[in-house]
Structures are given as C-alpha cells and as structure tokens.
C-alpha cells in the first residue's frame, strides 16, 4: 500500500509538471524531459502477441499519467540484445524472462515486492508456476503466461477416414496406429509432423513419460540419464515415424512449418503449445485438442513452457517497473493476452476455460507437469544442450538414437567435470 500511495503521489507530481511546465522544484529524481518517465519493456514476441503487449502498455500509460512505456521487441535477437544491455549496464527496466539460471545475477529479487504488495494477490496464481522463476530461495520472475503441450488433430481428416477422435488416456501405440491410417502418400498427407529442429526442452515431456530424463534429479549426472534406454526409446520413436513414412519432417530450412502443413490439412496431428490454436481456428480448421499420449503402463508427463516478467537490477525505476508487472498480471491484462494461458485461477474460473473441451487438455497437462526441466538443474546446461540438440537432430535425419545420445553424453562430459 505504501508503494502504491507513493506511486500515486509521484504520478500526480509528474502530471503537475507536465501541465504547468514550470515545476523545477518538484523535479522527480528519475524523471527525464518534460517530467515523463520512460519505462523500457523488452519482449521476444512479434506479430499479434506484440500488438497485444503494446495495447497493454498503452492501458498502463492511461492509468499512470506521466509514464511512457517503451516496448522493445527484440524478437529472435532477444538473448543477444538483452545480454548486450546487461553487459553495458543499460538493460531494459522490465523484461520477459525464462532463462533464470543464465540471467539471475543481473535481475532484481522480487520476494519483497511480491510478499508486501497485497494487490498482487499471489495466492490466486497457479503455485507451480513460481518454481520456474526461483534460483536458490529467491524469486526473480513473476509468471506472466504459460502453456503446456497437447496434440492437435484435424477433425475433418479423422471423419473422412472414419476414425474416432482420440481421448485422454490414449497411448503412443494408438497414436502410431492412427497416424498410419491417416497417411496417404498419394495425397502427400501424413499422420503426424516432426520438427527438423526440435527444442530439446519441448521433448522433455515425451522423455519423462517414458520414465527417462536428460539429467539426474540433482543435476550432476547425464551418463545413464541422457543416454538411458527410456530416453533413447522416446526419441527413437519420432525417428521411426519419419522412417516408416507416417510422419513428415517439418520446419527445416526452406521447408514449411508444421503449423502451415497442419493448416493446409496435410498432417492429421500436430504437437505444440497453445500458440498456434488461434491461427488454426482462423484458417478454418475444425481442430480438436487432446492430452499427450501415454507410453503403455506409464504415467503421462508434461513440460511447462513459462514466460515470466523480471526487473533488471540496474533499473532506475524499480517501483514503476513493479507497478507495470502488477498491471501485466492483473485480470484485465491477462484477459487481453489470448496467446497465453491465464496464470490466475480466478480468470480461468471466470472464463470457464477449464470447462471448454478445446482448453481442458492444457489444464490436464498442467497437473502432469511436475518434473523439473534440465536447464534449472545445471548451470552448464546450455553447453550440454548443444550436444544433445545435435544428437536429436541426427535422429530425425535417420541416425540411431542410442548411438547418437551416447556420443552426446561423451561430448558433454567435459562441461560437467
């Protein structure tokens, strides 16, 4: 409350400056010309998602006179630009963040803000989301959006082939059987699409579902984990589907993305987060969603992709930055962001998202996403991942998963000494 009232005071002072233009005595310590404070907000989003974020920034400016939110869209160059900003001690005030192990030293711990500010209503968040923004005991990011991964299917293709829509509780055996029946090389139609360049992060759900993992739970060992039989089996399955022609490689250089092929009705099933849902509907695809299949006799596990908001340690407007974050995760702003799943249970209940059959699988998968992803377990994970990514890619191009993963483990050992 204290912060809020201070903010209100500052805001009115700023407004006074702007109106009178003579307020020399009340010059705010952080203000720039004409008494307008510029808050820099860095995002990796582009296109529609960026548009929404700019709208949110405008809304924030309306309720905070004298503030200008400068939305900086770094897109693909996010890491480079952010690192350069930190390196030059000139980072954006607020930024999207997911790679906390890499950046936490440059971020402001938010525990104090979060616990003192009742307006945040922290209990309303899905609590599991906070684990991703913690390093040690400190919280560095407030969850802003998340998604789990589900299987999308094209109902029309299922209807034409007379195949029943898949249901929660289905297995990879069912999945492969359906993929086979929906493959028709003469029409260049395939049951499933596999990415040429997988993000190993996304594959973790698949690997965990088969009882494997990339790294031991204490984060020290990869031998016997990254190259375990279970891990190799899970990755090999994708390679095998490409080999037997029931899946098509998507998103390689100069190739169509899996989303585009799905929209063209040439693949029956596609696996992804919530991002493409809206565009599938816009493309007129009668799309269904279902939770990820299980390996027979094993529980399904999911992986959570979360984006959080953080404040730079070097920021000169930390209180204002906090206000912005708070607004960004308010009911109002959350409802504006349709490409993310709401982080607040109250919004989900209000919109009845978890009742909607199209959205329900994401929440089913959320309950299954309690494993810790590898990058949070070892600070050198980025290096190890370089080898792992190469191995996974080679499996998609026909190599044997077990051999490729053995090699990746061998090449990675030097980072874990």
């Amino acid at each position, binding site marked *: 409350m204290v912060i809020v009232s201070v903010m209100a005071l500052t805001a009115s002072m700023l407004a006074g400056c702007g109106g009178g233009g003579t307020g020399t005595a009340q010059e705010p310590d952080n203000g720039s010309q004409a008494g307008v404070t510029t808050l820099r907000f860095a995002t990796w989003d582009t296109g529609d998602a960026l548009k929404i974020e700019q709208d949110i920034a405008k809304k924030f400016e309306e309720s905070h006179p004298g503030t200008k939110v400068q939305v900086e869209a770094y897109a693909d160059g996010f*890491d*480079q630009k952010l*690192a*350069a900003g*930190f*390196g030059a001690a000139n980072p954006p005030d607020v930024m999207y963040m997911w790679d906390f192990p*890499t*950046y936490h*030293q*440059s971020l402001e711990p938010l525990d104090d803000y979060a616990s003192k500010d009742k307006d945040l209503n922290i209990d309303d968040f899905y609590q599991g989301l906070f684990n991703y923004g913690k390093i040690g005991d400190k919280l560095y990011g407030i969850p802003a959006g998340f998604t789990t991964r589900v299987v999308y299917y094209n109902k029309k293709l299922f209807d034409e082939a007379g195949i029943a829509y898949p249901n929660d509780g289905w297995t990879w055996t069912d999945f492969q059987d359906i993929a086979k029946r929906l493959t028709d090389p003469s029409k260049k139609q395939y049951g499933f699409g596999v990415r*040429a*360049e997988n993000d190993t992060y996304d594959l973790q759900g698949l690997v965990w579902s088969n009882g494997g993992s990339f790294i031991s739970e204490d984060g020290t060992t990869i031998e016997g984990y990254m190259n375990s039989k279970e891990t190799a089996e899970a990755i090999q399955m994708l390679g095998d589907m490409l080999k037997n022609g029931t899946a098509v*490689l998507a998103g*390689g*250089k*100069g*190739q169509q993305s899996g989303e585009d092929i799905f929209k063209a009705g040439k693949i029956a099933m596609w696996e992804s987060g919530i991002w493409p849902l809206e565009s599938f509907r816009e493309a007129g695809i009668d799309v269904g969603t279902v939770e990820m299949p299980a390996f027979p006799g094993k529980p399904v596990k999911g992986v959570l992709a979360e984006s959080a908001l953080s404040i730079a340690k070097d920021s000169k407007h930390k209180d204002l930055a906090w206000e912005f974050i708070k607004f960004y995760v308010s009911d109002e702003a959350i409802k504006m962001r349709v490409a993310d799943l709401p982080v607040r249970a109250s919004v989900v209940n209000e919109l009845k998202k978890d009742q909607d059959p199209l959205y329900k699988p994401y929440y089913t998968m959320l309950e299954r996403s309690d494993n810790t992803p590898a990058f949070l377990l070892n600070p050198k994970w*980025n*290096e190890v991942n*370089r080898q792992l990514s*190469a191995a996974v*890619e*080679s499996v998609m*191009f026909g190599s044997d998963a077990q051999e490729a993963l053995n090699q990746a483990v061998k*090449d990675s050992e*030097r980072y874990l000494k």
Partner: protein
Amino acid sequence: MARINVLNPQRQTAAPKRLGRKRWGGAAPYLFIFPWIFGFLVFTLGPLLFSLVISFFDWPIVGQVTFVGFDNYVEMFSDDPLFWKSLMITLKFAALFVPLNIIVALGLAMLLNQKVKGSAFFRTAFYLPSVISGVALAMIWSWVYSGDYGILNYFLSVFGIEGPDWLNDTKWSLVAMVIASLWGQGSMMLIFLAGLKGIPKDLYESASIDGAGKIRQFFNVTVPMITPTLLFNLITSIIAAFQQLTLALLLTGGGPLKSTFFYAMYMYENAFKYFKMGYSAANAWFMFLIVLTLTFLVFKSSEAWVFYEGEMKKAKPKHVKRRAAGREGH
C-alpha cells in the same frame, strides 16, 4: 629521371623553407586524414587488440571476468570436437570455393572482354549480385533451393532430373553453399577484366603470327600476363572462404547435422549464442593465424609463378622494336 620527380616533387624546390614546412606543413596531411586515422584507431585497431586481450580471459557478458592464460587456446585444441569439425568444414569449403571462384570470375571476365554488342549490359548484369546485400542474397537463394517449390529443382525437373532438397540434405548442403557463394564474385570479375584489358594487343598479334592457337594464347600469353591479378584474387578468395558467415547463418543455420557449420559460425555462436567472448576471441585469433599462414605461403610461392611486367624492364628496347616491326607489317 622523371620518375624521381614524381615521387619527390618538393625535394629541390622546398629546401629553403624546410623549417616552416616541417612544423606545420608536415602535419597538414595528417590532419586531413585524421578522421580516417581516428576511425581506424578507435573502431578497428582498438577492438582488434582488445580481442587479443580478452582471448586470455573467461569473459561472459553477464557475470565475472577471470584471467585464464592460455586455457582458451588449450581447450580449443584438446577438448572441443566442434572446433575441429567446423575447421574441417571450412577447409572443405575453401578447397571447393577458391578454385571455382577464380575459374568462374576469370571465365566471365574473358566473356566480357570479347568485343560483342551488349557487353556493357552483361558487365552490369554479372556485377549486380555484388551490389545486393548478403542478407537479401541469402533470402533469394533459400527460395531457389527450396526442395518442393524451388526454381532450381523446377529447372532440373524440366530435364527429368529430380533435384535433392538442397538445404536439408547433408550431401548437398555444402555444394549449395559453394554455388550461392560464387554469386558474389562480381568484384573479382571486374579485377580480372581490368587485368585482361591491360594485356597489350600486340602480344596476341605476334603470338598468332607465330602460329599459336586460341588455347595456346590463353596459357602462354593471357595467364602469365594476369598472374599479378590472379595472386590478388587468390588471396582475397582464401580470406573470403574462411570468413563465410552470412550465407551459413541465413541459408542453413549451419545445418543440417552441422554439415555447413563453418568455422566463422562456430566463432559467432560461441560469442553471441553462448556469450563466451574470451573463447570466441581465441577462435578468431587462431583463424587469423591460419589465414596469415596461407597468405604467407601463397606469397612465397608467388615468386615462382607470378610474372610482373616491371621485371622485364631490361628487355624493353626489344619490345619497342618488335612493336615497330608490327606496325610496318600493316
């Protein structure tokens, strides 16, 4: 004698005013080039030396900087399979690119050297790709190479050949890179063209009088006469081959399966993806050493095969006589 005057115009005339000139006139030229000198020192030499310094540090952008001595260099050689892999790929690329680049550029220059109608148009057309930025070129090539919709495979299909998926096939990706790289040879072609234009016509005339055919003329007149140009182009080609990055980055991203993962890209990723500035600087300095060595070797060998007309000075009178003889013949 005239030559001495050209080189030292003030030698005789300026002697009496030497003192004044030395104080102010001596500085004037440097003042004029000061903007360039400043830029060179601050933006070229400075960062260059700085990169040498940081190659002895563990230098992340975010976090602690620590001195590590030669560790970066040691790690590179003993502990990093990607280093060797990317180096081999670059060598392979250079082995394909350098000779082809020279042959194509020389071939085009020879074509343009013909006295035919429209040679000015072709000169512009062949040079045009060099004016286009590398990024735009990469975009165009990514369409050309597209497996399903690319114009190259369409062209091949007209002849009944089923083209590969160029950029997603490990066997063809490096070849695709070489072909796309050859597109930028416009400036080399121009340098060759200038070299060709500089060959006196009478050499060909006397050669043909001596009964040499076109092919003999090419190997015994053209090639020796343009060896200085060849030397220059050879060295710049080698350097270009080692520095190839734009196309790899945009066309293939180093893939598939790291088949086009050039050394420059390895360096780039270390610096701007993994933020290991010190390690990447060490990579860069090693590349500098390789290029330096290769350039040195080429220069050394050039004594054996490069022919400078200036070395023929002693024979000049003979040359003049022959020229006169040629005139009489007409």
